[in-house]
């Protein structure tokens, strides 16, 4: 096991971690590593690092390790960790912020998840709303999982749950404008 040289890492990532703290509004240094978050996390079993470890990375300046973890992509955003944290560290928000930053840096921990979110937002931008059938199709195509969920597809249509045509709204491009405005402000959409 190689050892981690902490001093140089700290200097290297201090500014970035500081920025992260500002963006998420969460101060990782408050965490005293009790692990309550990880114990309560419904997805922890599938993660490469428990959420506690992600916070530890931030405390030590191991930013890359945090950004390249699968954990941040697996977080379901259920906020169980955040409501239980004895130090009131909003871990779920840290995960969100890390994922946004990872995406900016091009570290895509889980391509499928990323594809899904991209397709989802594209649909929103184009139609104003989500076109679920299309979304299922797009995702499966990109994810090369052609048959996934198709078992559910037919009954869905039969039950009138999925419309085969996209529905969009007549908002005079207001939603598109929102996306544009966010981009103008440096949003990574």
């Amino acid at each position, binding site marked *: 096991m190689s050892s981690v040289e902490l001093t140089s890492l700290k200097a290297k990532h201090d500014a970035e971690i500081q920025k992260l703290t500002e963006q998420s509004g969460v101060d990782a240094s408050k965490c005293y590593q009790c692990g309550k978050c990880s114990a309560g996390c419904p997805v922890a079993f599938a993660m490469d690092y428990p959420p506690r470890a992600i916070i530890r990375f931030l405390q030590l300046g191991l930013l890359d390790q945090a950004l390249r973890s699968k954990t941040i992509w697996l977080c379901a955003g259920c906020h169980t960790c*955040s409501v239980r944290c004895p130090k009131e560290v*909003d871990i779920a928000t840290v995960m969100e912020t890390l994922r946004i930053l990872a995406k900016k840096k091009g570290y895509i921990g889980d391509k499928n998840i990323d594809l899904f979110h991209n397709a989802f*937002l594209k649909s929103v931008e184009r139609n*104003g709303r989500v076109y679920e059938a299309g979304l299922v199709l797009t995702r499966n195509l990109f994810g090369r999982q052609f048959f996934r969920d198709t078992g559910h597809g037919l009954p869905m249509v039969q039950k009138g749950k999925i419309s085969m045509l996209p529905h969009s709204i007549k908002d005079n491009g207001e939603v598109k404008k929102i996306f544009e405005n966010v981009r103008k402000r440096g*949003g990574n*959409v």
Partner: protein
Amino acid sequence: MKYAYYPGCSLSSTGIEYDMSTREIAKVLGIELWEIPEWNCCGASSAHLTDHLLALALPARNLAIAEEAGLDVAIPCAACYARSKATEVAVNESEEMKKTIQEVIERKYEGKSKARALLEIIGESVQGDHIKERIHILLTGLKAACYYGCLLVRPASTAFDDPEDPQSMDQLLHLFGAETVDWSYKTECCGASHETSAKPEIGISILQKIFIAAQNAGANCLVTACPLCMNNLDMRQIEVEKYFSTKYNLPVFYFTELVGLALGIEPSKLGLNKHFVDAMPLVQEVLNRKGGEQA
């Protein structure tokens, strides 16, 4: 009472029975729902993982339209509710954010219109004696495991109910004669974000625990207030059963469906026939009990 109504994308497709039952019971309970004209997707559950501002701006447009009409917004979907609430809170907490969001959505939103969960609104509207007269059938025999999911009562600072042991749905169902079981999975995550994405194996084991816990607690059905949870618990139940070679046979209801049933609304109008795990036998059982147990 009049509310702006924000059904959200799911309710016009996979969660259509939630929409149907909501509109039906609102009529009976005298709640006027004014669907936000040309509402847009709130961005859940992708926007907040992509861009913070976008995640706040998308719901803001819907809230802004409601604010113009001077109404609070009733939101059935827990995810939509959580995102909209986050926007409302952000706007009220920071003048700067208020300004930014208004500039992004190019509309005025002062944070006056509040995002409210449908469960809370329905819970309030049935307070008082008048509701007794409206009950057609008591839901006797239902042993419901109320499943609130993770987003409805979190984060704790803005939640309308307890994040660890919420009670509002239980109380609502008690009022209509159903039993609810005490179980500890009320606010566990169902893994929906993984289901709708690409990690089935993760979701399946999360779901399994929920089904077992409900069964152990003696429940004969699950009740939810979220179309994503519904989708997961209902549509994937068979999948989980197959995976673990077992049978749970737990019908899953929207709480609005059960309220509708008790108020005497035709099951098909509530969409009760649209479930994957056949709910009709249990519904029929309840309806057959009638007689002396009619309210």
